[in-house]
Structure formats: structure tokens, C-alpha cells
């Protein structure tokens, strides 16, 4: 059961899953190394959740090779489950149990759990330890979800849209929590709609559209040089001109020589959001879905 630490945490080749006529996942490849934090971005219906739920062992694949911590999730047993942590989205259970009871109860399912009190401290719920889950705020409930996901000391943690509905402060303290898991060496696969979150947390961003990976790379290199070209913008002859270039300094120097003072000069670097939206456009994702893909 124990796999060599140098094998990737997740290896996916040619993954396919069909629902009726719809190809939800259509030849997806993905590799996540040990200790890496990878964010999956993509519009609704891109196949993110289907892919992640196949990796978690909830769904069966139609085709392709999947290895998660060296095992096939479709057939892996309890020992494998004890090495992963799953934080789902959209669960609304747990109502009448207290934070402390839940974390301690879930800890008992695992062979070498973290200390329940340490976990409760880590997610910032110490004051709520006796509070029933029903009485927690949305953000506190989400942190409880994370507590239950990490109490088993997982080698690999799945976080499905962990900060949806958080206020900015709660989101920032959640990011600190993820950073601390990173320093413990936990591998994390994160799906998110927030580009700021992906930029802040992920070593690598994987963009999924139409059931396949359309781009991947570190957040500051996503899309390659072409997508990251600077835009030089200025006003001349009563209208705005725009040039995409790898050498903005050169362009500006040329303009300065010609115009002396350049009216309305702007040199713009594309944000991750610009790059991401450009990638979705290239993948023929309709404009309405692109708008929804960025929150």
C-alpha cells in the first residue's frame, strides 16, 4: 500500500467520462507531484467536479488511467482512504453535533489522526468548540469542513471551492491555513473560482475547458509569452492606439522620439484573469460562461 514518495501524488492519462451524450471529461491528462499545490480553474460544466470526484473515488471513469497515491481510486480500499482528505462543496449535514464532538469523532476513523484540539485551533474555531454546527456562520462551517478533511493527517487533500461565500478577511485567514498545510508537506488539489486564490496559493494552475486541459503552468507564467505580452496604449490623431509587444520599452522609446510627450500613455501587463479569460476564449468557451467563470 505504501508508495514511494517520489511517485507523483496524482497521475491521470486520457481520462474520459460521459453522461449520456455529453462528454463531461474528454481525454484529460494531469500530474500532481508530492507536496505541490495545484489549482484547477475552469467554467461551470468544464469537467472539474467530475474529474475531482473520480480522483476521490466517488465516480467511475469510462476510460483512461488514474493513479492517486499509487492506487486506482475506483478499487482502492480503506487504507488508501485514510491517506486522503476530502472537503466537498455543498454539504449541509452535521447540524446537531458540536465542533469538538465532530472533529474528535472523525479523528477516530483514521489510523494516525492529528490531535483534535490542534486541528480546531488551526482552523480558528477554538472559541466555537462547544457550539453546534447548526449555529456556525457559513465561513465557520467551511472551516469545520476543512478541519474534518485534515484531521486524518492526509498526504493528499482535495479542496473543492473551499472559500465560496467567505468575506475577504475569512478568505485571507483560510489561505494562511492552507499555507501551513503546505509547510507540513501536504499535497493539495484545489478547485476554485477565485483567481486571486489560485495566484496566492497554487504552485501550478491547470485550466480545464470542454473536459480537457487547455493550459497549465505557474500562475505567473500561465499561457506562455504570447498571452503575457504587454499592451502599450496611447492617444494620437484623436483616437486610442494599442500595440501588443514583447518589448514595451522599445515601443515607448520610439513613440517618445516621435511625439516627445506621449498623450494617454499606458503600459499594461495582463493579469491572471486576463490570461485566463483569453485562454477560455481560445478554447471556444461561450462569452456568457466566461463571465461566470470569474467571480
Amino acid at each position, binding site marked *: 500500500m505504501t508508495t514511494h514518495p517520489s511517485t507523483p501524488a496524482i497521475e491521470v492519462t486520457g481520462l474520459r467520462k460521459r453522461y449520456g451524450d455529453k462528454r463531461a471529461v474528454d481525454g484529460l491528462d494531469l500530474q500532481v507531484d*508530492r*507536496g505541490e499545490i495545484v489549482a484547477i480553474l475552469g467554467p461551470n460544466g468544464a469537467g472539474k467536479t467530475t474529474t475531482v470526484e473520480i480522483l476521490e473515488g466517488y465516480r467511475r471513469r469510462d476510460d483512461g488511467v488514474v493513479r492517486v497515491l499509487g492506487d486506482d481510486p475506483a478499487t482502492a480500499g480503506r487504507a488508501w482512504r485514510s491517506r486522503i482528505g476530502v472537503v466537498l462543496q455543498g*454539504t449541509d449535514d452535521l447540524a446537531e453535533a458540536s465542533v469538538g464532538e465532530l472533529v474528535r*469523532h472523525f479523528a477516530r*476513523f483514521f*489510523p494516525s489522526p492529528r490531535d483534535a484540539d490542534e486541528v480546531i485551533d488551526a482552523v480558528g474555531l477554538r472559541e466555537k468548540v462547544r457550539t453546534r454546527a447548526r449555529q456556525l456562520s457559513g465561513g465557520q462551517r467551511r472551516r469545520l469542513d476543512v478541519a474534518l478533511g485534515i484531521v486524518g493527517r492526509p498526504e493528499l487533500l482535495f479542496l473543492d471551492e473551499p472559500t465560496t461565500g467567505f468575506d475577504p478577511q475569512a478568505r485571507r485567514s483560510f489561505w494562511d491555513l492552507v499555507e501551513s498545510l503546505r509547510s507540513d508537506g*501536504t499535497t493539495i488539489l484545489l478547485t476554485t473560482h477565485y483567481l486571486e486564490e489560485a495566484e496566492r496559493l497554487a504552485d501550478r494552475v491547470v485550466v480545464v475547458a470542454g473536459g480537457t486541459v487547455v493550459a497549465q503552468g505557474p500562475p505567473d507564467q500561465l499561457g506562455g509569452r504570447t498571452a503575457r505580452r504587454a499592451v502599450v496604449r496611447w492617444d494620437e490623431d484623436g483616437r486610442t492606439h494599442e500595440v501588443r509587444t514583447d518589448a514595451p520599452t522599445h515601443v515607448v522609446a520610439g513613440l517618445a522620439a516621435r511625439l516627445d510627450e506621449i498623450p494617454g500613455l499606458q503600459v499594461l501587463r495582463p493579469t491572471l484573469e486576463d490570461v485566463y479569460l483569453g485562454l477560455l476564449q481560445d478554447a471556444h468557451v461561450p462569452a456568457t460562461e466566461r463571465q461566470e467563470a470569474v467571480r
Partner: protein
Amino acid sequence: MTTTTTTRTTPTAPVGALPGPLPLGLTRAGYELRLFFRERDAVVFVFAYPVIMLAIFAAVFGQDGATVTTQGGAEIPFAQYFLPGMVATGIMLSSFQSLAISIAVERDEGGLKRLRGTPLPATAYFAGKVGQVLGVSLLQNAVLLVVAASAFGVTLPTTATAWATFVWVFVLGTACGSVCGVAFSSVPRSGRSASAVVTPIVLVLQFISGVFFPFDQLPSWMQGLASVFPLRWLVEGMSAVFVPTGSGASGQHGTTALVLGAWLAAGLVVGVRTFRWRRRDDG
């Protein structure tokens, strides 16, 4: 964010052994029992219901020491006549109604899916449910019998045969109700509709199975319909325990065992085939 990942430490692989299904089942049972008694709905409509109904009916119909004449010609307090139906109802509520509703809600709210993502084995989950049902049911019956004996003058049986009958009917009835409850939990379309779907079925069964009205006074088609379902036979079995001079019910033990056993087997087959950890609309 361009740092390489090679310098990070890998978390140590779990060194402890996986907890066994039996201790986990006990853990689950304790947890489920604790949570059961925190749900006000469950405490009133599952746990306390038979006791409340016994008290109401015995107070209304048993005024001024009114008695019932059994088919054997014996005079017994009304509460004694009414008790078997309430014991049977309690068993059905604690097993069938409680599980059908609570599992439907757990599935709908994502609790089952969450558990499926942990190393908790399915056997431990169901063992926990069985433990919860047994705990609630035993406590409920104890309260029911103590209230009946102390407040309504019911004479409890003294023979070992009667108690042996109580035990096997209780165990078989609880097992049958639990298994059917798990199977039926897939019927309600949502957690919110679960009690609206399950409760009327249980209520109708109570009316046609001789819980509120004497069974032999019901129209014969109703008797025939009720005889297909387990509750009528649970009442029959418990009548033989608590109304010993009754309608010679002990002669029906074979049928009671047969019907409860058949529902147990059918519930198992259907339950194993239809049980889902996820909502129907969740792929």
C-alpha cells in the same frame, strides 16, 4: 510562486493500524444515539409517541376503571388491551420511520457522501444505525412498560414463555423495520420531504393493523390488506405476550415469524441494491 517542490518534506505515512469495524460501529452507535436525543422531532414523534398515545387512549377509554372483554371472556384494563399495539408501534417507529427519515436526510444533506470520503467502513456505519435503533427501542419499551404498569394498572406477564415471545418478536420486528427503513430511505426525493412521505404510511398502517381499533372489527378487506404488512403481525405477536387470554394469538406465531422474515429478506435485497451514498441528482 516559482519555488520548486523538492525541498518540502513528505508527510509520514500512517503508522497506526486502521481501527476495526466493531469498535468503529460502537463509536458510531454512541454518536448516533447522542444525536438522536438532540433532534426534538425524533424524540417526540419516534421516542415519546407510543407513551403519549397509550396515556391518551388509556385515560379516555379507561375512565372509571372501564375494562375490555377479550375473546376469551376475560376482563382486562383498557391500557392492557392497548399496550401491545403501542409496543408494536414503538418498534416500527424506532426502526422503520426513524431510519427511513434520518438516512434520507443524511443522504440529501451530503452527510453520507462525507462519510464515504473517510475510511469509515460501510459495516461500521450500519452497525452504528443498528446500535442506535436498539438503544432507542429498548429504552422506549422500558419506559412504555413501566408507565403502563405503574400508571395504568397493567399486569405484566410473569412467564418465561411470554418474555421469550417478547424477545424474538422484538428482535425480528426491529431487524425487519430497520432493513426496510434503510431500503425505503431511497424513496423520498429530498430530505425535506422525507417525513411527509414516511409518516403517513406508518400512520395508515397503525389504523389498519389493529393498533387503534380491534383488528377483528375491521372490514375483512382491510384485514386482508393489513395482513400483507409487518405491523399487523407485530401487534399479533405482542398481543400474545401482554393479553395472554386473548384471541389465541399464539397459534399465529408461525405466520408472524414468516411475514416478518419475508419483509426482512425482501428489505435486505432491495436495500443492498438501492442504497446510495450520494443524492440521486449527484451523478
